[in-house]
């Protein structure tokens, strides 16, 4: 393969915070949005503010991803702002591996192992979904033209091998 049509990169500088809370609790939403400086995303989408991106995981669950450096402060701020509320704030930074996937054939590659519709009309920039990729569960999101793939730590080696093999027909470069 002369030219790689897909690039894959492990993003090491990520912190993950799992947030549970009631969307219909105005005080909770206000507290989180003031800390995050962005509104909580609607179903199957993400929201961003600076280094922070919030992924919708479920009606009462979000994943907040920021830089490793800012994670502790964000955690503290969230805990402080939601003190006394029925929430769960957990640092899961060590639980996940984050990958960035780009290139002209990236949708074709993902479609080899992912059953959801990744056509631009169905999965546009800002979309996210908890889904399967090959035999691993992943959080898949699209930011502009680059996909984010968040996978549980113990599945990362498997998924990298899968990307390596499945991407071979298009040419995949790990950067």
């Amino acid at each position: 393969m002369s030219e790689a049509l897909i690039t894959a990169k492990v993003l090491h500088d990520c912190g993950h915070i799992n947030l549970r809370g009631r969307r219909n609790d105005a005080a909770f939403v206000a507290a989180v949005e003031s800390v995050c400086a962005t509104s909580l995303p609607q179903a199957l989408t993400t929201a961003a503010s600076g280094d922070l991106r919030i992924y919708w995981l479920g009606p009462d669950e979000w994943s907040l991803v920021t830089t490793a450096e800012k994670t502790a402060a964000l955690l503290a701020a969230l805990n402080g702002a939601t003190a006394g509320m029925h929430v769960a704030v957990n640092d899961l930074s060590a639980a996940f591996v984050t990958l960035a996937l780009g290139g002209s054939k990236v949708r074709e590659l993902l479609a080899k192992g992912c059953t959801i519709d990744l056509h631009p009309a169905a999965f546009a920039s800002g979309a996210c979904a908890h889904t399967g990729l090959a035999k691993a569960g992943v959080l898949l999101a699209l930011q502009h033209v680059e996909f984010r793939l968040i996978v549980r730590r113990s599945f990362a080696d498997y998924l990298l091998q899968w990307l390596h093999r499945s991407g071979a027909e298009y040419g995949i470069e790990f950067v």
Partner: protein
Amino acid sequence: MTAVNSRRVSFAGRIDRSQPLTFRFNGKSYRGFAGDTLASALLANDVALVSRSFKLHRPRGIVGAGAEEPNAIVQVGSGARTIPNLRATQVELYDGLEARSSRGWPGLRFDIGAITDRFSRVFAAGFYYKTFMRPKALWKYSEYFIRAAAGFGVAPTDADPDHYAHRNAHCDVLVAGGGPAGLMAALVAAKSGARVILADEQNEFGGSLLFATDLIDGRPATDWVAATVAELQALDNVTLLPRSTVFGYYDHNFLAIAERCSDHLGAAASGVRQRLWRVRAKQVVLAQGAFERPLVFCNNDRPGVMTASAVSTYINRYAVCPGGRAVVFTNNDSAYQAALDLHGAGATVVIIDSRRHGAGALGSLASETGIPVLQGHIVCDVAGREHVTGVSVAQWDGDPSESVSPSINIECDLLAMSGGWSPAVHLHSQAGGKNVWNEELLCFVPGVAVQQCVVAGAGNGRFSLHDALQDGIDAVGAALAKIGFKAADLTPPSSDGSAGRPTQALWRVPAALDPDRCPKQFVDFQNDTSVADIRLAVREGYCNVEHVKRYTALGFGTDQGKLGNINGMAVLAECLGETIPAVGTTTFRPAFTPVTFGLGAGENTGLLLDPLRTTAIHECHQDAGAPMEVVGQWHRPWYFPHAGEDLHAAVNRECLAVRTAVGIMDASTLGKIDARGPDVVTFLERIYTHNIGKMAIGRCAYGIMLREDGMLMDDGVMARIGEQQFYLTTTTGGAANVLGWLEKWHQTEWPELEVYLTSLTEQFSTIAVAGPKSRDVLKNAGCNIELDQDSFPFMSVREAELGGIPVQLFRVSFSGELAFEVNVASRQAATMWRQLAAAGKEFGITPYGTETMHVLRAEKGFVIVGQDTDGSVTPVDLRMNWLLSKDKDFLGKRSLARPDCVRDDRKQLVGLLSEDNRTVIPEGTQLVTDPAAPTPVPMCGHVTSSYYSASLRHPIAMALVSGGHARKDEIIFASLADGSAVPVRIVAPVFYDPKGERQHV
């Protein structure tokens, strides 16, 4: 030796004469051209005999030109890349192609099995059942020879070196079949803005137009095909898939397509060989066309007998005329085209038309061309064994029940037959749709669709070109409307719309003798099923079409009756005095044509067969040379051998180290759940059996959970972190299930409870430090909190730092020794492992694996869920009554009072000691009370865990024994595989430190 293409005619066809190719068939070398199929190239080289039939080993030739081919079944390629059972009619020729007949051993012309044909009356329907299944004793001798003689090709024995892949796809409209109706439908859908996938099994789009002589808009039909394909190619909402068979139509409009990406390239192939498309389509247009039926007359299986449309295909598409002196035998108009094509190719032709009135427009054309037509005549027998040499023709008045007297013999080397057309209703039927008999067209046509699909073209009984094109537009218009698209306004190009004269019902061609005594009239060529076989099946009581299928093998095999089924059902109907729709069809199942195993496996092979999960400390274990044990998807270190040690030596050493000094183990695979919220106590009280509310903050407890039926589901230590926060652990294998179980109860039954559950399994790694010196190791590692018994008692939890790294410290024990579990963020787990190993060096800290963990816990009688339990074990069976709260309700509690759960003879957990003090009873061994009892000896239980205990210097075992709790000190017997019975004594299942003093220091 390279033979010449003696049958090639001067037409251009769709072959590329500038690209000659060499190939081998049954060891002999031949020439062909790019654009040929293996079948067309064989015919060009005048190779008529291509296989031996399945049962009778009769010589067989090419009958069809596509998926329906029953005889030309070949094995292509060699070694690990070989594919068996391909239809030569669908194998594209490439340079260097090697193929051999799937059947006919040792050679086609001297087939040993042909002797069965001489005794064909013995080999009638049901022969295998009757002769070889009973007496059973004979079958073991005859099976090998029967299977070898009846075989259908050979599976490769080496691993497949090729690359197969899967691809998921979504579309608004999937069009299956790229003939006139399919192309028209795809064009309309594409121009309407829908996302379209057009799949066709052939190497180029066009379907029947690739061999038709029809004109579209006054020009050759293939011009229209080329223009339409070019138009579709230019649209980015269209995916064109040539060489792609839609082979399965499953529930929820999910369809499977086999794309053959590089099979046609031979040695030049690279990249993906085949790709499985898994398509979710909002609407499906089925435009698969129709199959021409053979006619059922005596010796209709001789090489040189072909369907008329196949003859036209070979002439017009592949520039091969399969015969020089041809007879066309038909009951309908369409075969007249084959006669015209033969005439045009320079062959002499006679048409035998069973209808007294003859054909319409095509009939006039044939007469004008000077082709003789015998109306009201039939071919009743064929002469020639390895090739047709002539036919016997009789006058016929249309009565199917009477015998006829042949009056004319015609010499010929080709017999083109047409018994009418059957729509390819396969996918419609796979989707659940029924078929409706059309008495005018004499075929089943698709009835009401069950899924989101429409049928168009010849597959819908619209046989004329004009009708097919119009039907493509109409069908896709209806489909598009259902998903909110306004169909683009297209009109069909101008083409012939004449229907011809009606087809005559002629299911079994009358012969000179009655059907049971005349030469064989084949219905299913591949399975050698004849009219007489079907009649025999009926006489022997097999009247239902599904029974007849299984008794006669009608419709089995690689072609699944694409040619013969309707004729067979009509013969059956005649036999039963029923109508064809009353008899009905057999069930259509995937795959439409066979698919390879590689296609199904895709890229999920080798390391990718199943995810291999490793802990954050995995590298350290690899560096230590630990063999791995697969636990679910996890790879866990099994034991840590020193040089020269085997499993037993290493485990004995590791066990003694933990009992006398200190060991260290990676317990990271345990499931970990954060549970919190105002109602967390209420929630957990309902899940676990013990009293949650009484747990003090900072304390741990062993907890079990039951299924509704009262059986033990999972266990683990839990800790109360705060007033409204708990930390739960689960077994390694149960982690995902338990979280799902908790979420299920919370979301569906008790949504009013305010609880959040979050998996921490991957966030934290767990390192167990166990043994009398474990406290010293932690101190040495720089622990910042007091670790003495008073400050940090057994079964409690503390936040701490070890060497500056924040950890959660649990004082719990799965070995019965003083022990700690260190929870650390996974990113720092390997560092922590190394720090603890260094801190423990002076105490002889010993890494240990899953095997030692198992021995240590068994010495203490701690169960492992899934090993000592199997989903049929209650906590009472395990003597865990102390864990069952009487003060509250919990899942499974009421089931424990069921009569079955309080039987005295339930299998209950006990310990076993071998009376000889040295036999380690294999796990799984059955236990008996009296080994001398008459067989079958009643079994009273089985061994669940069994090890040699280095600390105790004798074997120990745990077992589930019927009524075991009341049988202490009884001697029972372990029944070993070698037939011996080893006496074992029932004891309490706690072998080491029964008072539990060692963990409280």
